[in-house]
């Protein structure tokens, strides 16, 4: 896969305050990548920089192989952005909004009509096409904003906090839409979010940001390997564990730690999942009644929290 975004040691300041510092980020064509980080981490600024809205103070940014700031118009023609707020013209109808942005993206008149109709159909807004946007619910506005971002069929899609401020049902609708876009249309998608579950569900790779810098990036497995490679296996049996059973578990080479959390419940730290059948076989042979065996890998949330805490400790 060819590289579609290449940011290297980027610095950007609003007045004297760094918004991006030593920001390096790469995305290959067709990937769905999450930019994660708390508010103020620089996610929105990085999207602005990658679309040529802001000139960087240092470092280099290229998108589609072109230096960004000098080719901002061309890059924006080929990318679509869902801004943090829907940023729709609320006194205009849904169709008027799409028509305006279609014209701005240089689509032909017939193409605007056809694509607008298609997008409104896809996002379930066809029946409200001629209604003013200020009569829409938050979820509908967000779907219309995604439709606007995709109207000109962009190769690269930036979705900035697509589910923020939405109630759970609306957030789920939008989440489903993103999954559909990435699965069906195979677009390159950059998802800026602090909803970790959403990123975990949708993205091929994640980049975790803090104070304008990418602290870690990779697939979830890469990050697990780097941050928390072991698997935690919770084992719960009917009777209390015996001392010799605990001792046997500690002696096994695949098990690095045994934590007795309750009389009849332990958590084992194992290097890989091959240890689990051995443990199950041992307790079956001992005639124990096994109530639960649950292997649990570090979630994105675990990794994220671990990295953010480490960053805080380093700062302290």
């Amino acid at each position, binding site marked *: 896969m060819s590289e579609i975004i290449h940011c290297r040691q980027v610095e950007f300041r609003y007045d004297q305050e760094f*918004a991006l510092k030593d920001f390096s980020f790469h995305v290959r064509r067709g990937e769905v990548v999450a930019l994660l980080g708390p508010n103020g981490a620089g996610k929105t*600024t990085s999207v602005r920089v990658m679309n040529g809205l802001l000139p960087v103070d240092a470092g280099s940014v290229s998108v589609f192989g072109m230096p960004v700031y000098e080719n901002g118009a061309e890059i924006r023609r080929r990318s679509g952005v869902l801004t943090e*707020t829907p940023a729709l013209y609320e006194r205009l109808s849904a169709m008027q909004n799409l028509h305006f942005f279609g014209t701005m993206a240089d689509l032909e008149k017939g193409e605007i009509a056809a694509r607008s109709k298609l997008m409104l159909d896809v996002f379930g807004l066809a029946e409200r096409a001629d209604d003013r946007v200020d009569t829409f619910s938050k979820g509908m506005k967000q779907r219309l904003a995604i439709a606007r971002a995709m109207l000109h069929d962009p190769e690269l899609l930036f979705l900035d906090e697509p589910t923020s401020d939405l109630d759970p049902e609306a957030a789920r609708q939008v989440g489903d839409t993103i999954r559909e876009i990435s699965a069906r249309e195979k677009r390159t998608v950059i998802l800026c979010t602090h909803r970790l579950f959403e990123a975990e569900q949708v993205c091929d790779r994640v980049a975790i940001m803090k104070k304008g810098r990418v602290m870690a990036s990779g697939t979830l497995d890469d990050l697990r390997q780097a941050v928390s490679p072991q698997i935690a296996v919770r084992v719960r049996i009917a009777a209390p564990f015996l001392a010799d059973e605990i001792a046997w578990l500690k002696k096994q080479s695949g098990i690095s730690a045994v934590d007795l959390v309750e009389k009849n419940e332990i958590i084992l730290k194992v290097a890989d999942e091959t240890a689990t059948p051995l443990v199950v076989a041992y307790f079956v042979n001992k005639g124990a009644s096994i109530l639960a065996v649950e292997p649990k890998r570090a979630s994105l949330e675990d990794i994220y929290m671990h990295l953010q805490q480490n960053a805080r400790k380093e700062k302290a």
Partner: protein
Amino acid sequence: MNTRRVVAIARKDWIEVRQNKYAWMPMLILPMIFVVLMPLVFTLILPALAVDPQDVLSSDQDIEFFINQMPEAMLRHIDLDKPMEAMIVTMLGFLFAPMFLILPLMYATIIASESFAGERERKTIEALLYTPASDAELLLGKVAAAAIPSLAATWIGFVIYTLILNIAPYAHFQRIWFPLPTWWPLIFWITPALVVLGIALTVIISAKVQNFLGTYQTSGSVVLLVVALFAGQITGALYLSVMVEMIIGAVLWVAAGVLGLVAVRTFNRKALLAGSKQ
């Protein structure tokens, strides 16, 4: 320069202005007063009430002074032997002429405030900045959205004013007497300069004041220029003869040009996003 985008921005902004009652209400009310009500008061209502026009002209020392000090080129349009005519020409042809300039200034600052500051206030500017349009196209589209309706509305108002001033008092004049020569530079030289000046000022102010009302109220203070012209006339310090108007227009065009350059420098993506750091 992509004119299709420029037209699309102008059209979209104009639709938005039409939907904002805080924008269009004053744009309806003030012209009703200046263009329709005031002329009708002097041409129909006062005569109908049998008010002696001489009383109107001599009721105020300022008006008397205004007529007495008037340059010959202007005075020859006032026939003092015909008091009704003299009152109408003095009041509606000369004295209130600068007040007519409030209209283009008001239109320009209201629409520009709605277009520039309103867009930032409603947080729709960012989506616009992510389009392929250049900064120049965005600026030109928004300037066109403010300038074209402002000029058109002023000129339409001028046509209506002309019709009323000729038709309503026709019984007294028995001729087409308006527009007076001083009105041509007022409408076609000073008015466009004021529109450009008002818009440029609004663009600069909207970079600091990020809401419609605040920007409009601040930029609207430029109306003081018009009040100064009115005060200048009534005190006899400045008569708006054709020559004086040409000079004032030239000064306004230079000021509009300078402010326009500052506005162009102010209007860029980085500056527009500076207020919304993330």
